[in-house]
């Protein structure tokens, strides 16, 4: 069978329409791709924040596991105690590690020989979670802020909220410490960019 002359133009139109349709398909796929890229970027940012908050918690976990819930050896500072304004999520507790809180665990007669006080808090201006080792005392200050909060170590960034709560709540003899960290992806809305991490830590020393 042979094509008629009139059929020649139809092939070109057919090809153009096909190319146009293909272009539209590619364009729509590109849109999807761009959206996917944006989503991937957001996921990546969120992931980075999640990693950050996990690392911050890891940095806190050991010292909190190694401390004690004995009264006056661990203090959580509410707003009435001065943890307000530029400060948030303030806590102070003892450590038995010497050498600026990073040395070996010190013992006396098998028990912990407390060496220093560690303060943790969130700086509301920079959204940093900070840690301060004060080897001058083994009793957390009664009021916040303690005499000196510098030098300090930054153990978390983009932290928009931090809280410490003794559990059971209101019990005179608490048995654990609930920690909540709230981080936010830079530039993201609270709905899309907030990451919460909550855990309960049992200080193991008497």
């Amino acid at each position, binding site marked *: 069978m042979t094509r008629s002359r009139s059929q020649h133009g139809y092939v070109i139109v057919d090809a153009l329409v096909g190319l146009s349709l293909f272009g539209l398909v590619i364009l729509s796929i590109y849109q999807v*791709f761009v959206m996917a890229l944006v989503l*991937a970027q957001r996921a990546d940012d969120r992931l980075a924040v999640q990693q950050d908050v996990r690392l911050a918690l890891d940095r806190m976990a050991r010292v909190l596991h190694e401390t004690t819930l004995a009264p006056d050896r661990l203090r959580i500072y509410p707003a009435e105690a001065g943890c307000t304004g530029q400060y948030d999520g303030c806590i102070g507790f003892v450590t038995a590690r010497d050498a600026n809180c990073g040395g070996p665990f010190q013992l*006396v007669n098998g028990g912990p020989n407390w060496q220093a006080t560690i303060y943790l808090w969130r700086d509301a201006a920079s959204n940093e979670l900070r840690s301060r080792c004060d080897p001058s005392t083994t009793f957390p200050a009664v009021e916040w802020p303690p005499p000196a909060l510098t030098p300090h170590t930054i153990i978390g960034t983009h932290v928009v909220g931090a809280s410490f709560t003794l559990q059971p709540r209101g019990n005179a003899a608490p048995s654990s410490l609930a920690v909540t960290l709230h981080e936010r992806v830079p530039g993201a809305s609270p709905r899309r960019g907030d990451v919460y991490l909550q855990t309960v830590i049992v200080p193991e020393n008497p």
Partner: protein
Amino acid sequence: MNVQALLTPERGVAMIAVLATIMIVTTIGFALVGVMDTDVLHASIQNAVARSFYLAQAGLEEAKGEIAAAVDPRAYTTPARGVTRLYGGGRFTYWVDAGPATGCGSGFKTLEALAEVPFLKRDIPARVRACAIAGSPMAIALFGVSRIELGGSATRIYLAGYGTDTPGGGGSLGSFTETHFADTGVHLNALSEGAMQMVLLRDVGPVPDYALFGFPARPVYNPDPAADGSPWILGVFGDLVKARPQTGTVLNACGTVAACVSARDSHADLESIATLRGTVEDMRHDAAGMRHVYMRRMREQQLPQLALDRAPFLESAKRNAANIMVNKHAGFPDKTDSVYSNLDFYQLVGYLSTHRGEALQGTVYVAGIVQVVRDLDLGGPNGDVTLAIGGDLILGEDVSLTNRHDLTTAAGRATPGVVVLGLPTPAGRPTTVCGGQTIHGSGRLVLCGGSSQRFTTDGLLYTADGMTIEPGAAVDQIGAMYHNNRGTPNSSFTVEDATVVLRFDPLALSAFGRGLTILSWQQLK
């Protein structure tokens, strides 16, 4: 080129478009899956780290269980390679005083556990260590099976730690029935409240009371419980332990399941240190007004009932030939052991009191009720004497008894000091001794008091039927006290207008030879 020939089979064009689309979508899909996979990977690592930590904790628990179940917990060790168990998708290895498990000090058990959780062809580790006292299921400085009675406005009690370096280490006080504060003047750990207070210690002489707890200077705190219900120094002291037995119940005047803490003429159970210290001005109906009492907190604890058996002490004294020369000089030329009747012991005491250079050694068992009427130093400043009394022990008024150990060694610290075991069958009729106290051989220790009476001892002080300290006496002990009651209505520990300085050494409790208590915990990795 023949375009017509190319365009003739039109069906292939659509196929190319579809294949291209599928490739692009697949690429995007893989990219998204990659992102999610990284997220899952990080979360999985975090999960493995957490699992590893809890596995290490499980390793410690396993080690604790093995030690506590051992016939002699004090002697239990693992091989140097440790003991490995598969558990929870990983494995843990624990060591007890072997391999890497060192560092808790002589006499203390070092427990170490390493956990490894396999993840992505590598092991994620966690390593924890604990120090423990083996041979005792508790670490309480002063424990009474029955009531503890603290009375007298001149009473000064310090429950400090032994060898305290930085502030802390205070000893706990507990009972199975009741800890009763009879007088608002009782001072318990009241560190130089109004003015500097000194205490006399046998090894260093007079020292400020705050030095007992490791304070380099007098701590500044508000002693008024109405102003500060929880002075910041509370953290250095021990706990008030409301104990209850693991089996059965022990009745008390408060009607509570566990022991209670009560004050003055009431048997109502007080719930917190703040309430115990609180004043009427606090407007709290249950405020007890014990404003000079400083303890860290109150807590309940379930404990086994402990008792010392006379047989090992008797056997040890029978085998103890270290006192042959003293026996010979004291008038017992043929005596090769260290088991005495009370009359023999009086003869021995008479000799020792006139020959200050001589001393006893090892376990000394005295059968019968013993009343010491002249000052006695049993073993010298670095002795190793365990005075086991198969009856009651009464220290006459103004009479001092000293039994010091060599505390530079773990063995010296773990050696019991004075154990008052009572007669195998107590006498039917009681005898009244000083201060209206009655005895009948049930295993009581009575300090008759007097301004020059000093009772200095190291290691464990154990009584089968309680201890009473009359006004004026002073007790200076490094070790621990455990007072039973042998089913009598007697209080396990009573003090009236006396001074007690007890520097708690948990090693002293290992004499019981049962159980295990964790003293500290640390995370190495």
